[in-house]
């Protein structure tokens, strides 16, 4: 198991965003996390990436208890995430965005007060390699705010790839994309998943059915079901709460 979570709880005031989730994630598999709006999917990712601390429970990554560590430790340990709502450095170029992510994960470069940035040319090369993987290399010198929405979504992935994370958390990477872009993105994710463990939040149910090895269903912060795509499709409880209303979700 690359990751396991144990009785994970997140409360906001009295409101329970995530209630007592226990799950294990085998190395190398792609797990999709689905659930209606407000089910707690993004909250789950925020916990797994260390952005917020759980109210209770434990997160075990590669055998070590990382619960409560500062967020930058999660990243340096090899967990990277992309955001549902694009969260980049808007006034910097695509290349600079990824290079910063590479720098943050390079012990020799990140605190360097002395050498010119170009001294660490390896970072720039790694950054360009990440851009190439998502097809953004020709756009490397464009400022993020001038990139198209689909390109920004792809850049989110490139930034997450910067430190060759062993665990990649993708929060609705296809959010707001056209069908054509969505298809390209799903192809990219399938490629990425051959080399690392991927957790994917996606509310377009059809997409994950053909792609994920395993599916977790969240509902009102609770883990409703988990299993293979076929098991989830057959689960009556899931059909009732999710599949029934899934079609009417956002596009």
């Amino acid at each position, binding site marked *: 198991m690359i990751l396991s979570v144990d009785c994970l709880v997140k409360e906001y005031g009295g409101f329970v965003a995530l209630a007592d989730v226990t799950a294990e994630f085998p190395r190398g598999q792609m797990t999709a996390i689905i659930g209606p709006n407000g089910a707690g999917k993004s909250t789950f990712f925020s916990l797994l990436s260390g952005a917020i601390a759980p109210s209770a429970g434990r997160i075990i990554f590669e055998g070590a208890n990382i619960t409560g560590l500062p967020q*930058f430790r999660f990243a340096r340990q090899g967990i990277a995430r992309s955001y549902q709502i694009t969260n980049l450095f808007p006034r910097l170029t695509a290349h600079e965005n990824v290079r910063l992510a590479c720098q943050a994960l390079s012990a020799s470069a990140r605190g360097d007060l002395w050498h010119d940035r170009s001294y660490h040319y390896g970072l720039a090369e790694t950054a360009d390699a990440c851009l190439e993987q998502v097809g953004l290399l020709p756009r490397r010198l464009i400022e993020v705010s001038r990139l198209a929405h689909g390109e920004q979504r792809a850049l989110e992935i490139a930034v997450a790839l910067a430190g060759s994370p062993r665990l990649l958390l993708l929060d609705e990477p296809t959010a707001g994309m056209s069908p054509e872009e969505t298809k390209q993105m799903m192809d990219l994710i399938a490629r990425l998943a051959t080399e690392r463990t991927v957790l994917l939040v996606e509310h377009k149910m059809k997409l994950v059915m053909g792609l994920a090895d395993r599916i977790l269903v969240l509902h009102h912060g609770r883990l409703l079901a988990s299993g293979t795509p076929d098991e989830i499709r057959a689960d009556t409880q899931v059909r009732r709460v999710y599949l029934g209303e899934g079609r009417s979700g956002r596009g």
Partner: protein
Amino acid sequence: MPIVAAVLALLPWVAPSQALSVNILLYGLFATGFNLLFGYTGLLSFGHAAFFGAGAYGAGIALAHYGVGWFGAIFIGVGVAGMLALLIGAVSIRSRGIYFSMVTLALAQLVYYAAFQATDWTGGENGLRGLTVSVLSLGPISLNFLDPTTKYYVLFAFVMFALWLLSRMLNAPFGAAMEAVRENESRARACGFDVRLIKLIAFVVSGLVCGLAGSLNALHLSIVPIDTLYYQTSGLAVMMALLGGAGTFLGPFIGAAIFLLIEDIFSLWTPHWQLFVGIIFMLAVLFMPRGVWGTLAGWYRERRA
């Protein structure tokens, strides 16, 4: 950096008075220190008088009370400012946005009152006197500090050294990390930056730079007025950096020059010169939100692109 060096090297030959060029040099350095935090890291401090003042009093007290040499006194001033910045920084970076600004303001006022009360050390409201340095000797060299040109270029050498170190830092990966924090703190954290540490280092370096400006100013004036620590001095740094262009290297010096020129000219005409400074500042912020230098640099870049 080469532009700044050239401009400051030529300043005494174009400025209307020697006193003005020294002020531009030293207040420009002070605003540069502030700008490091505001323009490059995105933290708006309202308390930078504390570091300017700590540098001035540190150097001044070393000179006046302990008979330390001028060179050592500068080091002490810078060191005191750096320690104070470590303290104030560690407390204030726990809050964000306007709360950060308020915490720095409050802590700086605390330093002001402490200096006001500690009359034995600081001279209280009369200011610290008795630190006249007329000859600078360092090893075999000895320079007449009373000669305005010599004085300017001695101060210039210190300022240049500090600016050179700063430009190294800003061009280094650490400078990129500061920008990352400024542009999007939550993303910087998600990328794996220790945002707290970056802020604290930037804060301390900023304090050191302002401390150097303060120490040099104490040598220059031969007195440390209590106003040095007053919140208006913090406001000076904010105005100069904004006027010239926050987040640019030359901006704070341009801002200092404009501000001090306006002060020079209008204070001859009217005791209400601050009103005019205020109006000009307002107009500048409204019509040139990137500051004078920031706007010019922006035009140039767009024309070239």
